[in-house]
C-alpha cells in the first residue's frame, strides 16, 4: 500500500514533467547553450596545451543542471498548496514521510533525466571532436549515476524543505535562486578551485574563495562527476563520496523534519 502511494506520487511528477513541453525543452536547451556557447567560447580564450576548457566545464554543467532542476522541483509542492491538491494528498492514509519519499524520487528522476540528456550532448561533442574524453566504462558510469543520485536527493530535499515553509509561488524561485546561485558559482563547475592531480597545472585561487568553495557540498559532487568523466579530480573520490553522502542524509532529514509539519 505504501509502495503504491510512493509510486503514484512519483508517477504524477513524471506526467507533469512530460506534459509541460516548454519545461522539458528549456530544461535541456539551457544547459546545452551553456556548453555550446559559453563552453566553446571560453575554450577559445582559455585553452592551453593539455587543458580543454569545454571538457573541464562539461561535468560542472551537469552538476548545475542537477542543482537547478532538483531545488526547483519543490515548486510543485507550492502549486499543490495553491491549487488545493495538497489537501487531497495529506488527507490520504499515507504518512508524511512516505509522501516526502515519493516527492524526492519524482524530483530526483526529472533532474537525472535532464542530466542524462546533457551527458548525451557531451558524448555528441566527443563524437564531433570538440572534446577529447575517454569513453566511460561500467565503473565510470556507476560513479556518474551515484553522484547524480546524491546531488539530486540533497537538493530536492532542500527544495522540499523550502517549499514546506514558503506559501507564495512567486517567492519560491526568488529564495531558491538566492541560495543556488552562490552554490553554483562556488562549486568549481566553471573554474578549478585548486590543483587537479594528473591534470594541467592551474593558478591558485584567493584564500577566501578557495575556503568558500571547500565548504560548498556541491564542490564534491562536481568533483566526483569530473573524476568519472575526465579521470582526474581535485579530491580522492572516496572523500567526495563521503562528504556528499553525509550532506545528502542531513538534507533528507532536514527536509523530512520540515515536511512533516506541512499543512495544506
Amino acid at each position, binding site marked *: 500500500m505504501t509502495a*503504491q502511494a510512493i509510486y503514484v506520487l512519483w508517477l504524477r511528477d513524471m506526467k507533469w514533467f512530460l506534459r509541460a513541453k516548454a519545461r522539458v525543452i528549456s530544461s535541456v536547451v539551457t544547459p546545452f547553450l551553456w556548453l555550446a556557447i559559453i563552453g566553446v567560447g571560453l575554450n577559445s580564450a582559455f585553452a592551453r596545451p593539455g587543458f580543454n576548457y569545454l571538457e573541464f566545464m562539461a561535468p560542472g554543467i551537469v552538476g548545475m543542471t542537477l542543482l537547478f532542476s532538483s531545488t526547483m522541483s519543490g515548486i510543485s509542492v507550492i502549486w499543490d498548496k495553491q491549487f*488545493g491538491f495538497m489537501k487531497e494528498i495529506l*488527507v490520504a492514509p499515507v504518512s508524511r514521510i512516505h509522501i516526502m519519499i515519493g516527492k524526492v524520487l519524482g524530483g530526483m528522476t526529472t533532474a537525472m533525466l535532464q542530466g542524462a540528456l546533457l551527458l548525451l550532448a557531451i558524448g555528441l561533442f566527443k563524437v564531433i571532436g570538440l572534446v577529447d574524453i575517454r569513453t566511460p566504462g561500467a565503473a565510470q558510469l556507476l560513479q556518474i549515476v551515484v553522484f547524480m543520485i546524491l546531488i539530486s536527493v540533497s537538493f530536492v530535499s532542500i527544495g522540499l524543505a523550502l517549499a514546506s515553509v514558503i506559501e507564495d509561488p512567486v517567492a519560491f524561485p526568488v529564495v531558491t535562486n538566492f541560495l543556488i546561485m552562490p552554490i553554483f558559482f562556488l562549486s568549481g563547475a566553471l573554474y578549478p578551485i585548486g590543483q587537479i592531480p594528473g591534470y594541467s597545472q592551474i593558478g591558485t585561487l584567493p584564500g577566501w574563495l578557495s575556503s568558500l568553495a571547500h565548504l560548498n557540498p556541491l564542490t564534491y559532487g562536481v568533483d566526483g562527476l569530473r573524476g568519472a568523466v575526465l579521470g582526474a579530480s581535485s579530491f580522492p573520490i572516496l572523500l567526495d563520496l563521503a562528504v556528499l553522502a553525509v550532506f545528502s542524509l542531513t538534507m533528507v532529514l532536514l527536509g523530512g523534519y520540515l515536511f512533516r509539519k506541512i499543512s495544506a
Partner: protein
Amino acid sequence: MPAIVTKGLTKKFGDLVAVDRIDIEIEEGELFGLLGPNGAGKTTFIHMLSTILPPTEGTAEVAGFDIRQSADSVRAAIGIVFQDPSLDSRLTGRENLDFHGRMYGLTKEQRDERINKVLELVGLKDRADSLVETYSSGMKRRLEMARGLMHRPEILFLDEPTLGLDAQTRRSIWEYIRMLNDVENVTIILTTHYIEEADYLCDRVAIIDYGKIIALGKPEALKDELKGDIVSLKVGEPEKYLEVLKGNELVEDGKIVDGLLHLRVGNGEEAIPKLIEVVRGRGDQVYAANLRRPTLEDVFIHYTGRVIREEAPESIARLRARFWGRR
C-alpha cells in the same frame, strides 16, 4: 453503531473558540447537514472529524475509530470533498481517480471497477479522459464527489458542496448527493450556509453558530417548533412597534432583523390586517408586509436574532482571526 459520536469536541485558535464543546451523534446512512453562517465553525468541525486538524479538547469517534488515537483508520474510512477545489487540473479525470485509488491502497482490479462505477454515478464517463482543466465547475464538483467515494468510505464529508455554483448546477448536484447517499449507502455529512440546501437535502440538520449547536432535528420538526406563521412588517420606527406589538395578544414573539419587524403569530392571514390596524391607530404606516411559513432561516433567527446570510462584520473578523490563527 452510530457513524459519528463527538464528545466535547472543541477547537481554539488562540483566544477564538471556533468549535465549542460539541456533542452529537450521527447515525449510519444519514444525510446530515450542518447549517450556519460563514465562520460558524462548520469547516473546522469537519476538519477535526477528518483528522486534518487536531482538537484542542474533547474527541470523537468516526466509523468506530477515535480521531486522536487512530487517525489513519479514520482516514481510510472517510471520504472528503473540500470547500475549495482540490483536483489536479493537469491530469485527466480518470488519472485523478487513479491517483486517489492508489493513495488509498486499492488493487488494480478494485481501481478499474471503482473508477468506472463512480464515473458512471456522477455522469462523467464520456469525459473521463479529458484534462480536468477543460471541465466546468459543476463537473469538477461531481468528479470530486466521485473521488471521495472511490475507496468505498463509510462516511463522506461534503464541505459547502454547492458554493459558487449557479442555481441549475446546484439543483443537479443536490440530486447527485441524494442518489449517492442512497445507492452507495454512505453516511453523508455536509456543511452549508444555504437554507434551501439543508432543508431540501438533509434528514437531520444541526444549526451551528459561534461554534455551538443551537438546534438539532429534522428540518420539518425544527420548523414546526416555531408554531404558526412569520409576519414581517416594514415600519418607520421598528423599535417602538416591537414593544407595542409584543404586547399584542396575537404575537407570540418578535425580533428586529435587518430593520424589519419579524413577528411570530398563530394565524398569519388573520393577523396581518389587525397588526396593520394597530400601527395605523397610532398614526403611523406599514410600508410593506410579508407572510410566510417558518423556514430554517426563521429557526436560526429565533435562536440568534440574526439572519444566516448576513455577512456580519463580526463574522468576517472571526474568519480573519481564524485565518491568521492557523499560520
